[in-house]
């Protein structure tokens, strides 16, 4: 990576601003995801409306970041790694906004789930999935700042485990619903909650790929096996 400063110091300031905006978006996406699933685990719906409202903050930050990227391209004419950095920022911001949407959707579904007295045995697994995904997100955000392609590759590997766990949870939720009609009140929503968490893992993998591209100037090899088999599961 190029460590030297730009002759035009305002360009360095622009890139620092971009990184700061990205850090704020990343932190907010992390908080939203954690809070939305934690409410389900703790059976405490009190913060869910706030999560739903706060999603707009992520949308607004993304819009600001888009404006900043356009400004940098227009005024600084970035080249090589600088150009990759601003293009990657644009894509990563869009992905973080999407993660926020999924966290908001989890919050909405958890409101419904917690509005019933029906309970699932899958909470520990959902918590594990969330922890795995949050850890991926945290590592990815650090890797973005450091442009650390090695950590980015680790994150891509970690997503395989999330996919595997999602397959298991999906199967278990189907079984819960087939053995107890009451579970149908919450089961479909739980399927979406877990699928959303799994999708967030995919999005984080996408960010990790962008970090790899930022570092190397080319995308990583896309031969990763698909470990989420839930789309092939039928009721037995």
């Amino acid at each position: 990576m190029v460590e030297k400063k730009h002759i035009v110091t305002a360009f360095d300031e622009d890139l620092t601003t971009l990184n700061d905006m990205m850090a704020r978006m990343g932190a907010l996406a992390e908080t939203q995801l954690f809070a939305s699933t934690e409410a389900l685990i703790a059976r405490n719906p009190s913060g869910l409306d706030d999560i739903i409202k706060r999603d707009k903050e992520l949308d607004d930050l993304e819009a600001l970041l888009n404006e900043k990227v356009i400004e940098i391209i227009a005024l600084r004419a970035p080249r090589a790694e600088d150009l990759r950095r601003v293009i990657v920022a644009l894509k990563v911001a869009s992905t973080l906004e999407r993660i926020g949407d999924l966290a908001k959707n989890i919050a909405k579904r958890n409101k419904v789930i917690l509005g019933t007295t029906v309970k699932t045995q899958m909470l520990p697994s959902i918590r594990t999935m969330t922890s795995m995904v949050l850890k991926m997100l945290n590592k990815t955000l650090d890797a973005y700042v450091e442009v650390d392609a090695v950590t980015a590759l680790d994150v891509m590997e970690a997503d395989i485990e999330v996919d595997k766990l999602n397959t298991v949870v999906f199967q278990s939720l189907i079984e819960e619903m087939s053995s107890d009609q009451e579970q149908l009140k919450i089961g479909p929503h739980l399927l979406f909650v877990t699928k959303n968490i799994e999708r967030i893992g995919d999005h984080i993998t996408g960010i990790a790929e962008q970090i790899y591209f930022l570092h190397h100037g080319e995308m990583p090899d896309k031969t990763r096996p698909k470990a989420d088999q839930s789309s092939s599961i039928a009721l037995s």
Partner: protein
Amino acid sequence: MKRDGDMTLSTPKIKSSGIIVEYDGKRALHGIDLDIYPNEVTALIGPSGCGKSTFLRCINRMNDVIDNCKVSGRLMIDDTDVYDPEIDVVELRARVGMVFQKPNPFPKSIYDNVAYGPRIHGLTENKDDMDRIVKKSLKRAGLWDEVRERLDDKALGLSGGQQQRLCIARAIAVNPEILLMDEPCSALDPIATSIIEELINELRERFTIVIVTHSMQQAARVSQKTGYFHLGNIIEYGETNDIFTRPKNEQTEAYISGRIG
């Protein structure tokens, strides 16, 4: 100096092997190996004093006119050894035209500026031949429509951009194979620059073009290959697209990104 891979399968038009240039015993170029391909625009970039113009001037032996300048190494244009002592330098410069930083038309008419080269090289039999060459050259330089009604006017009455296109017309009037351009747009406004850049793109169908420019945007816009010079060495040479998106060398990256240490 190492270059990156075989970039094209075509035969180089210009082949520089270990070109060293010394002024008063001080080295300005440290052994340049560079293959320049036909019908492409090759841009040479780098900070002031890096040797890019010195290298350009080796191609048509313009350095010969500088006292105490010594060139060694080998520079081939097709099968011609440019530094062969037997070579006719006037003939060489008919094969290798040059356009300079500042438009430098002769203090003559527009017509006579273009006719000058063909006349001294004896390329025409009669006035009709000459008229044809002048018209063709001015057309190729994108200037004909603007000057056709005033070919006898003084060239120095043209705008800067028109004067530069006239110099290009003058250079191509002797039907060269190679056009060297040493910062051809640095004295021009952005509109005149765009016209010249568009012209360069059209001219590459007929000529091999080597351009020295301080404008990296210009290098990116007009060239197919780019060479980055620094302190008398060629640091990196490759497809322009690669040089400006993912250069392999850190010095190149720092230069094109506008960074200092």
